[in-house]
Each structure stands twice: as C-alpha cells, then as structure tokens.
C-alpha cells in the first residue's frame, strides 16, 4: 500500500461538483492536503507557492487556458519538478492527446467519468513508476545529462518494465549531450521494431538538424500515413520544405498541422512567417492574430507576433490605403506591444517604424515622419545594436519610407558588425549598391583572413598587425575586434604589457553592444573574463 497521507494534491476543474467529488475520492485515500482551483491561471499561481506531488488537471476548462497550455507554462516557468505527477482529466482523451506537444506530455490521461478505484489504481502505478525512475528524475532536476544516461542504463538493466520510459529519457539525454551518432542508431533501432510516435518525430528532427533533408522527408511522409493525427510530423515536413526554400509547400504543411491542432502558438507563428514570405497576407494576418491571442497572459508570448501582425495588416490592403479599422487594429496591437514590453527600447524603435509604414500608406506622411524622427532618436541611444536580420528589416522599412540615408547608416553598421557572414553580406548587397559599404568589407575580409592564417601559424605579432589594420577600417566589426583582442591576449600571456592590455580592453569595449543572441557572444564573454583575470 502506498502512503498518500503526506502527499500534496492540486485538483483543477471549472466545475465545482467535479472538484468536490474528486476531493472526496482523495479523502477516502487518506489524503489530507488537497487544494483546488477553477482556472488554469489560478493553478499556475498556486504552483508558484506550493510544490505539489500530484496535479489532477481538467483538459477543457472553458474560457482561459486549457490543461495542455497550463502544463507547458508550468514546464517553461520551471514550476513543476520532474517528480511531480501531472494527470490530465478529460471527457475525451484522444482529443487532448492530439493537442499535446510530444516534448511536454502529461504523465497520464484519465478519462471522465472515473471512479475512485480507477483513480487509485492509476495513481498507485504512477507513484510506483516515479519512485523507480527517481535516479533519472533526480539527475534531470540537477540538469546532469550524463547522470541521466547512467541512471537509464542501470534501471533498464534492473527492471524491464520501465525500459520504455527509460528509452525516452535516454534519447533526450543523448540529444542534449550532442551524441548524434548514438542517438541516431538508437532511434533507428527502436523504430525498426515498433513505430513509436515520439521516436519517429525525434529521428525526423534529428535528420532535419543534420541537414539530411531527403531522409527527414521520407521518414515524416511515411510516419504521416501511419499517424495522420500527429501534428508534429506536419511541422517536420514544413521545416524540410522551408529549408529547401519551398515556402509554399511549407505553408501548406503548417496549415495541415494547424487543422489538427490550432492552439499552438509556435505553429501559428511559423505559419504567419511563411504566409508573409509567400505574400499571402490574409493568412499571415489570421495566423499572427491567433499567435498574439494565444500569447496573452502566457510566458510564450513573443513580440515578433505583434510586429508581424501590424506589418501584415499594412500589406494586406494591397495597393489601397489602409482604412480606419485597419489603422485601429494596428494601433491597438502596437499599443499592446509597448505596454507588455515597456522597457525594451529596440522594440519601441521597430514598433514606431511599422506604425510609420502604416500611416505613410494611409497618406498621413506628417504623422509617419514624426514617428520616424522619434525612432531615430531612440535608435541613437540604444545600448546594443540589432541582430543582423532585424537590422536588415529596419533598413528595408526606412528605405520604403523614403529615408534612404538612414537606411544606409543601418546597413553600414550591419555590414561592419556582421559583414564576415556571406549570407548577410548578400542580403545587404540586395538593399544597397553603395560601394563604400560593400567594398570596405571586401578589404577588411582580406586583411582578416590573412590575419587568421598568420595566427594559425603562430605568428602572433604579424597577425596582430593585420587585425589592427582591419580594425582601423571597421572599428565596430565584431569578428575583427575579437580577433584583435585574442591576438593581444596571446602576446600578453607571453609578456605582460600595460598598453597592450589597455588596447585589448578597448577592443572588447568597442563591441560590448553585441546582442546576446549572436553566435560569437560566448567567445566575447570568455575573452572578457580572460582579460579581467590578467
């Protein structure tokens, strides 16, 4: 017999009769500590204060978040430990299962109506399972993936009953540790035996990540014929086609996935982006609108959806100028954006420009210019520059609004900071033919590659000289600054010198506006730490 008397329970259902009846069943199992809530939002708030052992959550709560959304929020906010048992109660489990994301599934589904015997039987099994898997769950709580692997191996050897659960944890750990070959052979073997949906999706995405698009497509396609109600498979196919540049096909698959499961914020966001790229502004508007709605009071909200909704609304009117209703929705959407992310000045700049675009199209150039001026002022004060893609977007907007000079400034900075990436340079060349911007990069790139060659040959003084020349031309170029700093550090480690150390510090300060999303950010931080430790 399992002792439930010390366990803390949370029952969430919008009907008070159900809460009372389940609480009654739990009392008969000697459970004393039972909290209840009527809304998912309340449940999330309660989980902030109490670490529940078991949560019995209704799937369909009427208005507000559904059970799956609550579970995802709890995971995202780390309000639920791997040890907690989350049971999804539903009138129809198959529906709830379709809506669930494979990476965030409840521990069990319990179909209503259920009696005490069913509830107890199910809870007994779940408690027993969590107990058996405790070493894995402990390791997960510590984010120690190597320990997860070790624990999986041990439990699989000791108890064959838990092999299926262990395999899933094992696959997750292999992925987290970047053990691609091992993950691939494990999944392929599992699938050859039985077509487990989670393994199919994981292997398809694995091939997608590795760029093996044909393999991924073949797997997703055959999996869909077996599991036509698994939206993750459609997402996979959409990603395959998007990677090939076939955005129309990608859009089609995203729409198929959404027909099965429309409440996914991420999927709506992807559809919006794809539809916009395809010039299908009606669908883009609808998708971004849904995404904004789904993100309300959610930790998954994403300001991109607001910005994209506003700009898609502007595009949607085609050659006609946007009417007052459209302008109202744009104003409300951007107002919502600035209220929700009120401290983010970079977002404010982007919102101003999107709004200016709509106003200019409606014929109100004065109001548009006012917003552009405001945006320019804000932009000058930004502590960090935009990511490359955002910068390109802003430049395009400014260009369209008739501020070619401002657009060129942005492009010049963008080229300087990110110009060593060929794709970004190509995109910049698509927007400007200004030789000062395009050629500066060519010259700098030449010096940079020579510098790198010298560095690799351990000719550090020569390398430093080349990087210095490059830096003189483009002081804000992140790669050059980091390369210069690294060469200086090399020399400093051999022989300390105050002026070299100062120069090194300057290099790093110069690029301190690097966005934390940049792939060079980790390297930047490491160099800063090394200099600080000199």
């Amino acid at each position, binding site marked *: 017999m399992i002792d439930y008397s010390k366990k803390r329970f949370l029952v969430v259902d919008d*009907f008070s*009769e*159900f809460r*009372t*009846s389940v609480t*009654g069943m739990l009392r008969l199992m000697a459970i004393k500590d039972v909290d209840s809530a009527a809304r998912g939002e309340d449940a999330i708030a309660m989980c902030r204060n109490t670490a529940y052992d078991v949560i019995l959550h209704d799937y369909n709560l009427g208005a507000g978040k559904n059970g799956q959304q609550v579970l995802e929020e709890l995971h995202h906010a780390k309000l639920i430990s791997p040890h907690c048992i989350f049971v999804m109660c539903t*009138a*129809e*489990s*198959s*529906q709830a*299962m*379709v809506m669930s994301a494979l990476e965030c599934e409840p521990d069990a*589904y319990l*179909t*209503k*109506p*259920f*009696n*005490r*015997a*069913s509830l*107890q*039987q*199910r809870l007994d*099994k779940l408690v027993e399972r969590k107990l058996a898997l405790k070493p894995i769950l402990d390791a997960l709580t510590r984010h120690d993936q190597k320990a997860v692997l070790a624990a999986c191996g041990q439990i699989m050897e000791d108890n*064959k*009953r838990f*092999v*299926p659960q262990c395999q899933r944890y094992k696959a997750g750990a292999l992925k987290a540790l970047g053990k691609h070959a091992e993950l691939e052979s494990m999944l392929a073997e599992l699938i050859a035996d*039985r*077509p*487990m*949906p989670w393994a199919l999706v994981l292997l398809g995405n694995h091939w997608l990540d590795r760029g093996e698009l044909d393999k991924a497509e073949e797997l997703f396609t055959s999996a869909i014929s*077996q*599991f*036509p*109600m*698994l939206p993750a498979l459609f997402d996979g196919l959409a990603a395959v086609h998007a990677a090939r540049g076939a955005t129309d096909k990608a859009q089609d698959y995203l729409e198929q996935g959404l027909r099965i499961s429309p409440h996914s914020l991420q999927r709506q966001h992807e559809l919006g982006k794809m539809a916009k790229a395809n010039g299908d502004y009606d669908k883009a508007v609808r998708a971004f609108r849904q995404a904004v709605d789904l993100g309300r009071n959610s930790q998954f909200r994403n300001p991109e959806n607001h910005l994209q909704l506003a700009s898609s609304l502007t595009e949607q009117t085609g050659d006609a100028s946007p009417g007052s209703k459209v302008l109202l929705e744009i104003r409300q959407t951007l107002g919502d954006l600035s209220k929700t992310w009120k401290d983010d000045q970079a977002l404010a700049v982007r919102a101003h420009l999107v709004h200016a675009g709509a106003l200019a199209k409606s014929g109100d150039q004065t109001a548009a210019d006012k917003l552009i001026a405001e945006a320019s002022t804000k932009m000058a004060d930004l502590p960090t520059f935009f990511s490359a893609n955002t910068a390109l977007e802003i430049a395009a907007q400014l260009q369209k609004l008739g501020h070619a000079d401002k657009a060129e400034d942005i492009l010049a900075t963008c080229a300087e900071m990110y110009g060593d990436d060929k794709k970004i340079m190509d995109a910049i060349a698509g927007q400007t033919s200004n030789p000062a911007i395009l050629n500066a990069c060519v010259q700098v790139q030449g010096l940079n590659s020579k510098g790198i060659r010298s560095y690799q040959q351990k000719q550090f003084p020569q390398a430093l000289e080349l990087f210095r020349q490059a830096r003189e031309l483009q002081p804000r170029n992140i790669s050059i600054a980091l390369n210069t700093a690294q060469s200086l550090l090399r020399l400093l480690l051999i022989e300390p010198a105050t002026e070299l150390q100062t120069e090194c510090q300057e290099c790093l300060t110069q690029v301190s506006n690097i966005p934390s999303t940049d792939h060079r950010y980790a390297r930047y931080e490491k160099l800063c730490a090394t200099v600080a430790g000199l």
Partner: protein
Amino acid sequence: MSDKEQSDSSHSLDFSTVIASTVHDMKNSLAMLMQAYEKWSVELPPELNKPAERGMIEYESLRLNGMLVQMLGLYKLGVNQLPMRPNWIEVEDFLQEQLARHDEILQSRDIIGTYEVEEDGLMAFLDTELVGSVVSNVINNSIRYAQSAIHLKAWSEDDQLVIAIGDDGQGYPPSMIEHQSDYVLGINMSTGSTGLGLYFGQRIAELHQRNGVQGRIELRNDSTLGGGEFRIYLP
C-alpha cells in the same frame, strides 16, 4: 435533378458532423449527470438507498458512455481522424485499469472480476485509449450476461498479444458465433449495439498491425468460466 433540389443539397448540413459534435456534448452532459448523482447518492439516507436502482443507474450510464465513445470513434474512423497513439505498456496495468473502471458495478451485482497475465511482466505495444474503449464495452456487455464472474486473461501467441474477456453466462447465440465475420465486416447490423460493437472492435484491432499482420477479434463460447469469450488479437 431540378435546380431547386441541387441548391437544397448544397446547403444541407453534413449530418455525421452534427451527430459527432452532439455526441461530444452528450458525453460531457453525462459526465456531469453522473457526478451530481454520485454526490447526491452519498448524502442520501440509508433507507432511501436502493441498491437495485443504484446499480441500474450506474450500469446504464456506463453503458451509455461506452456507446457514445464508440459512436465518436466510428465517426472519426470514417473521416480518418481517429488519432492513434500506441505505446509500450505493461499488460497487467492495463487489465487492472479495465476492472477498476467497473469496480462499483461489479460489486453491486455481486460479480467477481478477476484477471491473469500468463507471463509475469508481459509488455505490449498498443493504443491504450482505443483498445481500452473496446475492452470496456465488452466488459459492460459481459456484466449483463454473467451470473457471478467475469475473467480477463492476456497472453502472447505467435508474437501477438491476445486479450480475452470471458464470463459464466449462457454464451453468445450460436448464430452470432457462426456469422461473426458478417458483424465484423459491418454487414449484419440487425442486432443493433452488439453488432456495432463488434464492428468497432474489429476496426480498432485492425489499426494495430505489424509486418503485414493485422489485429482482429474473435467470439467463442469456450470460456474457462463456461460462458462466452471475446478475444482481441494485437500483433
């Protein structure tokens, strides 16, 4: 066909969709009804608590629920929207769960429900939700005909999982055993819910397939308890 008829047909509702969404609401309604009943019956003074009526209400509502689940399932099969989510499970857990669902009814009817799994720790790959709804309907049906006992049994045969539900009733009518393939194919629906149940069971079994072998169901009258036995084979 006249123009008028044509325009009528293009405006007509898709009746199966109407039924499906209504059934969905009916299921929710029934769940509410049962909860209210349960709450109320606990508070009832003992002299008003009539076991026969209670048993009837509980049994029939479970049966009703089973029929609604089946109807939704059939609709979704028809439009190819029945989600299949197979998983590895421990067969013993599954059988326990099925009996637990019918716990009160078995008790109120003085029927003993037992189960056995031939091999300790037997694992199987199946969709518990779908197979569970089939097994639950069969148990419901067995309870109606059983005198004192029903028995669930599972074993592995030719790489397939077999789940058998038997009782100590009179068994299936000989004609039903003889013509079971008609029911299974959905040809003979004259027996109403029973025939439909067999058809549903077969379709769910068929969704489970491996290496070209499809799942199936079988009716027999040689249960160890002496009555009828329903078997579902899952590769």
